[in-house]
């Protein structure tokens, strides 16, 4: 299968899912008004990617802003990864990056961490 890549633009994040390294990254701002449609190809790719068991996957989020609609899609991504870990002998690590001092982005990470049973790292970075 092929890697999945979308370049960031005004209201969409950069999405870089690599099936050779098994590193999946979402980065930037996400406030598309129709996230169901926008993320559909992302979920289609993930379905194929997760069809094969026993992978060691790193999921990176490095968001500066996302709307509530994207927030729901991110939880769906995390739920898929959790299911993969539980049922397909996968090993998943989530790295949630937030800019130092961005208390809201840190809190968003903590709220996802509470909602899924995956190794979760909250990692500050300075700009």
């Amino acid at each position, binding site marked *: 299968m092929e890697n999945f890549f979308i370049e960031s633009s005004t*209201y969409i994040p950069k999405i870089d899912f690599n099936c050779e390294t098994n590193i999946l990254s979402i980065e930037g701002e996400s406030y598309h008004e129709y996230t169901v449609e926008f993320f559909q190809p992302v979920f289609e790719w993930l379905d194929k990617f997760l069809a094969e068991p026993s992978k060691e996957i790193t999921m990176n989020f490095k968001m*500066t802003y996302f709307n509530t*609609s994207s927030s*729901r899609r991110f939880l769906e991504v995390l739920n898929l990864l959790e299911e993969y870990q539980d049922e397909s002998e996968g090993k998943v690590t989530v790295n949630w990056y937030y800019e130092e001092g961005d208390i*809201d982005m840190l809190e968003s990470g903590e709220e996802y961490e509470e*909602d899924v049973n995956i190794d979760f790292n909250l990692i500050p970075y300075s700009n």
Partner: protein
Amino acid sequence: MEYYDSFSLRRFHEDLERNAVSLAFHGSFSQDTIGLINISLQQNDNAKTLTKRIFSLVVEMAQNIHHYSAKKIYSEKFDREIGVGVLAISETEGYYIITSGNFIEQKDVLEIGERFEEINDMNDDELKTLYKERRKMPQRPDKPGANLGFIDIRRKSGNRINYEIIEKNNNNSFFILSAKINKSIN
């Protein structure tokens, strides 16, 4: 000066000045519009967290108008009907105030009122719990939104949200939403 119609730009401008309105937009709330508001907000020198919270409120209100305004116009670029409304950012000594307005259908009036009554009196923990519960629920069919916007506005604002629903005729009401954010957060 003689006006061509009854709209007075002078009065409009005075009103904006008197209320320290830094941004006002009336029209259809496309992605592009929201992107421009984002750029405009970056130009102030507020703390980043404050700017982002103001932008969060703008996005959730704007996307609420985009999806649910009873008045829509067709956009050729996006090949969709896009909701029309009005949004303004003003300020007082201690607060930024973000206000939006749009027409809603009569059938939605009751539900909107009930939802604000529910969240206005909640504390931070209760809001967080409700947000997370709601986020786990399946996407509502035929509704593009996440059903989280009002809760997010309430959380990011940190204050009670004011709303007003003005009854009009023809099955439409005008819905005004007003949230404030303390300037002193950082």
